[in-house]
């Protein structure tokens, strides 16, 4: 070895060591600390498309309004739960974070003191004070308010049906579950697409990502049959909805659908992201889901054929076999904005953050978050917002930032209840939009609310995940014919044996304590 080559070797070795150490160390650190009111607010919330540019026009406008720099971590919706849990385990919790206040990891963190208890603290701030008492109660965790709820419409359940198929077969819109069955049967067997082949089915159901009582089509149907929504009172005690005869009756009914080929055969595996496809392709004619799916499908049909797209109708909740109508309401919110104690340590700092959020959720802030910058990407016409300058790429960026990202920061105005409603692009969508409110107000009269929504049982926090899948799995197995009704009942018993008995007791105790 020559001297120079040795030296080179040494340099290479030293350099690579240094690099490695540097890269290993750069992971942590950058703690802000300090007690004074910060000029920066770190935030984490959901994202439904491409992340906004932090120097973009919209973010600058929002920062100008609230008088603070925003450092926002945008996390794609599909992985938000996982990412939130990992973030809760890190030493880098953002100041403000959209979070499911009932998720075990959040409850554990909050109870350990990682988040501010905001109970009774929000009334001072006019735009943070809960606008709806019921929703405020729903978004509590065992009597404590850990965050500001992000508002959503109170009832969004409905049935989307192929309007042209109904007309072709001479059928009326359904009012009862029996009507619905008759329509599904006709859709599957009477060749609604007129191609001479028996290649259609009635209802389209995807692989449901949530657990029991998570607004799945199954949950909605069970409510129509009179089963409780999540929890319900039976003989003076709160029982889980699946431990009722109505639950079994609803699923017996749905099982018949599956057996008779009225449901898509891959209902256990169809990716929920592709839920619209069989509908638009004309394979199936009904979807039980949120009402906005109707406008979504209308847009998809319009994309396919701009001249003939009025093929979708929306129907509200149905009357059950006993003729009585029970509607499936939503919780009225989706996640809360919680405030972490990691950097916000004193009451003064908390007050400063709440004041900032109060500005963010003001009328002016709500417009920025849910509509955008007036005069740049939209103008106001009567009660509607009308998009303008959309061909300008800069304006397009603002529109994207609003729709896919910043709307997720709204708590007063948000998805489905924007500051201004968007003016519908055509007559069909306008009529559909108008239906939303009509159906909602009609169905709210018969809504079955979940009395246990504000509670989370300690046993569920401790072992939720292992028993959460028991009921939804058993339900799918029963519907597909893999198990019998007795085996389904055995699974319900298994739920009780694996900790459900404790959960039921705890929920009853919590409810009694809350004076419910």
């Amino acid at each position, binding site marked *: *070895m020559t001297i120079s080559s*040795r030296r080179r*070797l*040494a340099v*290479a*070795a*030293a350099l*690579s*060591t240094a690099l*490695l*150490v540097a890269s*290993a160390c750069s992971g942590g650190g950058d703690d802000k600390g300090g007690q004074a009111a910060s000029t920066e607010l770190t935030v984490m919330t959901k994202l439904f498309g491409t992340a906004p540019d932090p120097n973009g026009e919209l973010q600058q406008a929002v920062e100008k309004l609230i008088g603070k720099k925003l450092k926002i971590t945008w996390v794609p919706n599909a992985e938000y*739960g*996982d990412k939130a*849990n*990992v973030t*809760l*385990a*890190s*030493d880098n919790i953002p100041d403000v974070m959209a979070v499911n206040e009932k*998720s*075990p*990891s*959040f409850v*554990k*963190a909050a109870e*350990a*003191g*990682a988040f501010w208890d905001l109970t009774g603290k929000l009334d001072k701030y006019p735009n943070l004070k809960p606008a709806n008492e019921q929703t405020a109660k729903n978004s509590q965790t065992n009597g404590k308010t850990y965050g500001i709820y992000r508002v959503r419409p109170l009832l969004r359940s409905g049935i989307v049906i192929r309007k042209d198929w109904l007309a072709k077969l001479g059928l009326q819109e359904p009012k009862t579950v029996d009507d619905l069955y008759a329509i599904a049967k006709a859709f599957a067997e009477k060749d609604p697409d007129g191609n001479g082949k028996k290649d259609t089915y009635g209802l389209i159901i995807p*692989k449901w990502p949530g657990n029991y009582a998570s607004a799945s089509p199954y949950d909605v149907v069970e409510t129509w049959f009179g089963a409780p929504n999540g929890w319900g009172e039976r003989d003076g005690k709160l029982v889980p909805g699946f431990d009722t005869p109505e639950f079994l009756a609803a699923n017996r009914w749905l099982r018949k659908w599956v057996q008779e080929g009225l449901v*898509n*055969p*891959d209902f*256990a*595996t*169809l*990716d929920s992201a592709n839920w619209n496809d*069989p509908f638009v392709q004309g394979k199936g004619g009904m979807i039980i889901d949120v009402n906005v799916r109707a406008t979504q499908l209308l847009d998809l049909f319009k994309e396919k054929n701009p001249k003939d797209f009025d093929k979708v109708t929306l129907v509200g909740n149905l009357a059950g076999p006993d003729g009585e109508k029970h509607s499936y309401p939503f919780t009225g919110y989706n996640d809360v904005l919680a405030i972490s104690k990691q950097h916000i340590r004193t009451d003064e700092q908390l007050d400063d953050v709440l004041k900032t959020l109060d500005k963010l959720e003001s009328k002016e802030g709500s417009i920025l978050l849910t509509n955008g910058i007036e005069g740049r990407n939209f103008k106001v016409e009567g009660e509607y917002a009308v998009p303008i300058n959309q061909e300008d790429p800069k304006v397009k960026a603002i529109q994207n930032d609003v729709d896919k990202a910043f709307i997720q920061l709204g708590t007063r105005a948000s998805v489905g209840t924007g500051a201004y409603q968007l003016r519908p692009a055509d007559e069909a969508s306008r009529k559909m939009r108008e239906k939303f409110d009509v159906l909602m107000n009609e169905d709210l009269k018969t809504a079955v609310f979940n009395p246990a929504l504000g509670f989370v049982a300690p046993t569920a926090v*401790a*072992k*939720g*995940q*292992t028993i959460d*899948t028991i009921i*939804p*799995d058993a*339900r*799918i*197995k029963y519907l*597909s014919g*893999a198990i019998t009704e007795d085996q389904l009942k055995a699974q319900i018993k298994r739920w009780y044996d*694996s900790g459900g008995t404790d959960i039921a007791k705890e929920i009853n105790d919590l409810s009694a304590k809350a004076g419910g």
Partner: protein
Amino acid sequence: MATDLVPEVVQPAANSSRPATGPRRRRRTHNLWRYRWLYLLLLPGLAYFLLFKYLPMYGLTIAFKDYVPFLGYSGSEWVGLKHFQELFTGPDFGRLMFNTLLLAVLTVVFVFPAPIVVALLLNELRVNVLKRSVQSLVYIPHFLSWTIVASLTYLLFSVDFGVIANWIHGLVGGQKTDYVAQADWFRPLIVLQLLWKQTGWGTIIYLAALAGVDSQLYEAARVDGAGRWRQFWHITLPAIRPTIVVMAILTSGHLMDSGFEQIWLMTTSLNRDVADVFDTFVYYIGITQGSFSYATAVGLFKGVIGVVLIFGSNFLAKRMGQRGLF
């Protein structure tokens, strides 16, 4: 079993660390100085292992605590073996163990030998262009992510629009089978996916070993009248035996790794009973549920089994007269 393995393995290390006598020690320091640049080159590797493999092991202590992130490592309470007790006595343990082991056995029986067979077959090909192109084609799937493999499986086997599913249905008739959802088809599909994705990649190392066989051996055997089969049995196979043994030992350490992504993507409500393995369990418990201590305990248990398996198979290999890994 583990206890009588340990001395066997530790012995060589113990021998070499005996205090060296005078001249020997001097020679060693001399060598150290003489090869100092090479030792310096070793440093990055050492630093890597210390920083990324050994330092994080400190985190394993949370398996013995009730870890609450907000309280930190030191602030969380010690609970001893509580989480292990919970795991071993819990309702899930038997099912998880059975599913994990069965998948491991299936992997050893079907997936492990596949690359050896393919490599041997490729080795018999005499047209070099054909050999090369087949080799490249079969290892391309290795570079596809499990998400894509799972999507392809759904496209091919879905009960509604699956090409292969419909084709089989056309041949066999009768009731349509839902391959991707049914519990009975879960394990066959997992093995098929593994075969499709990993076989080609696995052949590379065996082909390299085969390329190293001295062609004079074959010539000599042919002169002595050995046929194709005899040549294969007495030359080719013994030549790659050490490689097979090393690969077997390495594989044994990963037997408890069922491949989280693959299993997770293929899990449905209908097959969860057979699909749940330790890897997915750790994800549900740790990431979804936020029970970090319990999840770590499960992971640690899995790791210990992996270590025992590595030492065990190494010991067995030596017993059977092969050179082990260490």
